[in-house]
């Protein structure tokens, strides 16, 4: 499984699946035990494929899995 897809699955499983449940880079790296730079790289790739969406909340960038991203995750697990 490509690195960014594994990362996407982790984001899904930790619950970042809606704007209300979006997470900052810090929160994501704490949950996934991933280096921030690696997390940022994966996030960039996933935003390009529309599997992740970024939103700004109180000046802080937060990320969540989109509907397309959820479908991608589900297709990995079945």
């Amino acid at each position, binding site marked *: 499984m490509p690195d960014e897809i594994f990362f996407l699955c982790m984001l899904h*499983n*930790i619950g*970042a699946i809606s704007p209300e449940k979006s997470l900052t880079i810090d929160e994501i790296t704490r949950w996934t035990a991933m280096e921030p730079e690696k997390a940022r790289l994966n996030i960039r790739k996933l935003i390009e494929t529309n599997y992740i969406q970024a939103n700004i909340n109180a000046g802080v960038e937060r990320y969540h899995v989109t*509907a397309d991203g959820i*479908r991608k995750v589900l297709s990995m697990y079945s």
Partner: protein
Amino acid sequence: MKICMLTWEFPPRIVGGIARHCLGLAKALVKDNHDVHVFTLDFPGVPLYEEVEGVRVHHMRVELGHPSFTTWTFLFNHFMEKQVAMLSRDVDFDVIHIHDWLTTPVGVASKHYLNKPLVSTVHSTEIGRAQGLHSPDSFLIDGLEWWMAYEAKRVIVVSNSMRWELQNHFHVPQEKIDVIPNAVDMTKYQKEIDRESVRRRYGVAPHEKLVLFIGRLVPQKGVEYLIWAAPAIVQRCPEAKFVITGDGWSKSYLEGLAASTRYGDKIRFVGFVSDSDLVDLTMSADVLVVPSVYEPFGIVALEGMVAGVPVVAGNVGGLAEIIEHDRTGVLVHPRNPDSIAWGVNRVLSDPGYSQWLTKNAKKQIQETYSWEAVAKRTTQVYEKACMR
């Protein structure tokens, strides 16, 4: 009867056949005057409670998470259990029905604290999907599949080959198992479409032959064998164009494989396609290929047959039970690109033969694979489960 149906997959949260199965079955049960509550996971844009043609659907939020898939599965089972418990104060369920291992914990727990019979539908097994047990998670899933069959009063499987699997791998007694095939919603295919316009959307010109694959891009679906068959198909039928829908963890490998053939430009990976678009695309195809190496049922084959498209399928599992070779479809040797190429070329080269196959297939589907028939047989299973 008041039915509590538990499934991780329900539209619009569609992965494979389970979502379509649960929707089709639930709607048909409601038409038979049963009260059906489906508990499933939430999805963006969908309300937490909705009624879909009389089916009461509870989309459930998972309030805690964990990066590990199996841990997350147990977490969502807990939240589902909580929701079932809360609703059961108002609804006295007669039976609990779970689908596949993902809802085993909530199903088993609900069975015991509600003191109601459990019915389990095993759509496929881990040992079949993964062609063996290769990791701790695989062994856990295998254990959960055994457990769901053990705790159930009745076990439903969708084909005789699945029944054989349960008897041989999990030693489930034959008398506990009911074989009820899947069905297909035929009304979806009773429409007129602009075939050329649909094909154009997927890069298929009017003169080209659309060779369609629908399904998850995982090894059990055998897509790599279709790709290996592509050169032999194109040599015989230069107008052949392959459209591969769906997603899965093998996608990158398959895209690389397609690119490595001389016909990479004739093989298009179009990703996830919505249900309604999938109906149009299926109806526009010249042949539907189901090259599975493991297939407990093969609902997509039914969909091809009812759409009036000739089906070429691997001679495995449920596919071998649905399709009568050379009468309602073409069965080919699994894992065999030459055989797949033979089957596809047979169909593409003889329009009269294709038409004859599709006419026979449609008749068979209408007689055997309706959701009404499946719902009646499932109700009989529920009644058996409810007997003391």
